[in-house]
């Protein structure tokens, strides 16, 4: 008996993975960037299926809204859009490496019995459902209590990245 959520899950996974495959297989780099945006949208749908609404919104704003646009701008500023996505000399090696890693990961994931660690008793289930229903409140609370040091550190990293990006691309005036 297939639930409707399962059908949506398989469709989303199929769309995400096939557009991710098109990113690395298509010759036209502009189309690759559009398929990358499609992959990000598929990841947004997966986050919604996992009940992580805050992360879905963040992913939609930052990845689909900002990073895709910046990548498309970079493609537009550099020439050779039509032939801009060729393979390197390591084509065979890369495909073999990817297939090997993929097989290894899938075998190790399927062999392990996940039911031993994912069975929640009713008390834990209540806590998980409660936390995900009030996720915005608890994410805000974690950011200013438990994880305040990584929060400040990541804001410094963003500041340094902005300054570094500006100083890398600005015109040198002697």
């Amino acid at each position, binding site marked *: 008996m297939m639930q409707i959520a399962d059908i949506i899950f398989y469709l989303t996974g199929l769309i995400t993975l096939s557009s991710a495959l098109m990113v690395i297989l298509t010759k036209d780099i502009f189309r690759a960037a559009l398929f990358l945006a499609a992959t990000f949208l598929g990841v947004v749908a997966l986050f919604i299926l996992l009940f*992580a609404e805050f992360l879905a919104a963040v992913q939609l704003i930052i990845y689909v809204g900002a990073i895709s646009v910046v990548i498309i701008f970079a493609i537009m500023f550099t020439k050779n859009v039509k032939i801009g996505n060729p393979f390197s000399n390591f084509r065979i090696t890369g495909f073999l490496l990817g297939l090997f890693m993929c097989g290894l990961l899938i075998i190790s994931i399927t062999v392990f019995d996940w039911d031993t660690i994912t069975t929640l008793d009713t008390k834990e289930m209540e806590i*998980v459902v409660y936390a995900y229903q009030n996720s915005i409140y608890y994410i805000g609370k974690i950011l200013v209590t438990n994880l305040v040091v990584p929060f400040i550190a990541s804001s410094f990293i963003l500041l340094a990245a902005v300054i570094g990006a500006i100083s890398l691309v600005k015109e040198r005036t002697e």
Partner: protein
Amino acid sequence: MTLEGFLIISAILFCIGLTGVVIKSNIIAILMSVELMLNSVNIAAVAASRYVPPITLDPSQVLMGNMFAVFVITIAAAEVALGLAIVMSVYKDKQSIFIKDASHLKG
């Protein structure tokens, strides 16, 4: 829709990104493959925080996987800004965005 399904999607997405990093010769395409790998890690972290029971019965401990994903997204934004700035800088210098031409540091 189990933890196993999400982890398999995440593993395949990671391997697609890994293949893309190796087989592409355009720096922007390599950056796009790196983004795919970072996204796959986010899916794995959020799925684990959803399905694996928390150690303590504190609601803020349940959402730690989501916080992982938030910080990964922050670092990914910084990474793509710096990476594309380096691409533009190389392009101004060599009029090319292929890795075979970006060999300034080769002795």
